[in-house]
């Protein structure tokens, strides 16, 4: 800052700095002058100074005025209590505080960073050491208390000083009554402003998510009008994602791997098969429970059966029904596709026999397939629950 001023006036930097420090020590006006200069002198490489921006910031000006008037009131009280030295600092302090407020609200980010660096050590002490904070507060409070009592005692002793004191009290009360509502309103405006900012941020976040998911999908859909199956698939995937966001609070595109429950696993199958094979999978799930190894095996078998149906049945819709009961979990995969003759299944249909039957049998579960050519196929899977695994609360 000093450098900026020096450059403007054609003076030596060191000289300006020394002048500021001397002025600051002699009376408060040095500090005030520094702050005002900060407001008025444009930073290097910037054409506008902060003050011109601050003029447009009416809330900031109001805030500065409020703080200034509050400070004036405090100083008035101080001068009455006989602290004359404070009075001499009053003018500069008011200007300084008001100026800093305006700078804070309108300064470019690096100036804010400077201010924050100055303030942070003070805040840091509070955060790092709450006990010392409490001690500090308690000592300030007791000092004030003692001071107040002393003033009162002196006031009693000489009735002469009681009268001006009463007068001043009246003046202060008048100021508070006149300006109080205004102070309150400004404070409230600040709160409202902050809320509006939070809302704006939320809207931006929502817009970003809708853009990432819904708008992208709509764009894709428009480009694929000629492929109805693709369009349906896209719409379904988007629908599921939106649903899980709106009703389950899950962010679009995220599936929690850790802590996934059985129902979550079934939905996962639904999603993946729809995405990879272009069929609709309707899933109805009753109850839910934690996943264990047995149920993971059940899910793997169900995935195999669903993929099989998607690949071979020719049906557009596959129904998944899963039910969690206290002793058993059952899962049905059904399609209304072409079906097949079970007895005539050749050895190349390894998927069904190996993946589904064997997987279930190894874990003590069972699998059965019912298929009628021309009517469709249903794979039924059952897996006993391990004792001691408690069901989730009704979900």
């Amino acid at each position, binding site marked *: 800052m000093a450098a900026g001023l020096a450059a403007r006036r054609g003076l030596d930097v060191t000289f300006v700095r020394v002048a500021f420090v001397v002025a600051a020590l002699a009376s408060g006006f040095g500090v005030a002058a520094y702050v005002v200069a900060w407001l008025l002198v444009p930073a290097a490489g910037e054409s506008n100074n902060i003050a011109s921006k601050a003029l447009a910031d009416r809330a900031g000006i109001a805030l500065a005025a409020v703080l200034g008037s509050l400070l004036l009131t405090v100083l008035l009280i101080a001068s009455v209590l006989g602290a004359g030295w404070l009075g001499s600092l009053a003018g500069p302090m008011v200007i300084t505080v008001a100026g800093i407020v305006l700078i804070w609200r309108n300064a470019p980010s690096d100036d804010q960073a400077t201010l924050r660096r100055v303030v942070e050590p003070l805040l840091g002490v509070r955060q790092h050491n709450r006990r010392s904070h409490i001690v500090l507060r308690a000592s300030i409070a007791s000092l004030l208390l003692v001071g107040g009592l002393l003033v009162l005692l002196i006031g009693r002793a000489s009735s002469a000083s009681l009268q001006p004191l009463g007068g001043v009290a009246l003046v202060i009360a008048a100021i508070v009554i006149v300006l109080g509502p205004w102070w309150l309103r400004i404070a409230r405006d600040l709160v409202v402003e902050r809320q509006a900012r939070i809302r704006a941020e939320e809207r931006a976040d929502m817009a970003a998510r809708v853009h990432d998911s819904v708008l992208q999908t709509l764009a894709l859909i428009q480009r694929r009008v000629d492929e109805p199956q693709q369009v349906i698939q896209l719409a379904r995937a988007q629908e599921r994602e939106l*649903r899980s966001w709106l009703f389950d609070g899950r962010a679009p595109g995220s599936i929690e791997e850790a802590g996934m429950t059985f129902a979550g696993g079934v939905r996962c199958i639904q999603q993946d098969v729809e995405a990879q094979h272009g069929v609709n999978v309707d899933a*109805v799930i009753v109850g839910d429970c934690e996943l264990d190894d047995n149920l993971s095996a059940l899910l793997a078998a169900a995935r195999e059966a669903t993929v099989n149906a998607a690949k071979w049945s020719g049906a557009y819709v596959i129904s998944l029904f899963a039910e969690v009961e206290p002793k058993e979990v059952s899962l049905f995969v059904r399609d*209304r596709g072409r079906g097949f003759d079970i007895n005539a299944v050749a050895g190349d249909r390894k998927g069904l026999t190996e993946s589904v039957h064997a997987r279930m049998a190894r874990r003590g579960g069972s699998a059965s397939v019912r298929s009628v050519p021309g009517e469709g196929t249903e794979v039924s899977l059952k897996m006993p629950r391990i004792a001691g695994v408690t069901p989730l609360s009704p*979900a």
Partner: protein
Amino acid sequence: MSARGTQDESGNRPRVFIVDDHGLFRSGVRSEIGDRVDVVGEADDVEPAIAMIAESLPDVVLLDVHLPGGGGQAVVTATKTMHPDVRFLALSASDAPEDVIAVIRAGARGYVTKTISGAELVHAIQRVAEGEAVFSPRLAGFVLDAFAALPVDAAPPSFDDELDQLTPREREVLRLIARGYTYKEIARDLFISNKTVESHVSSVLRKLQLSTRHQLTRWATDRRLT
């Protein structure tokens, strides 16, 4: 379930009223089913719907579960005391089970999702017009879930026992519906007649609507929390 004379005389075309706040959806449904049913009117909110339904007295109201002015159940509740012959089929794009159950408990005779095909929707409308209950696989799943919230043996005995529990047979029927079976397939599978399947489903609907079982409400609140 008494057979209704009115629609038989007019060539078996049910008179349908559509309540949905999305104009696009209303016109879509109208064009999809308009050639097989008589669409006698449409409304986009609770208040106009109640007034216009009372005026046109349709056989079946296609009712969106989510409406701006209080939800679909408000329309059912307001209409059913004055005009018990008007039947409701709930439709929704949402999976929120508590809303669906609320509309059914208010008196709707069935629930289907909005992704249903035109032909299936017409079929569902006809069944509701004839006084049957229409359970989509999803609704069957919700109901199983709701009634399974408390294990049977842990339930305290009550006077409403009959209303508060599903019989094993009803459970079986619901499971098959949830698995995507048609009534005909269920009948074949369980070696019972079509009519018996229908009566099981109607009985489940009745229990769902009349049961005061607090678990049912608690289930709905639990769902909302998860």
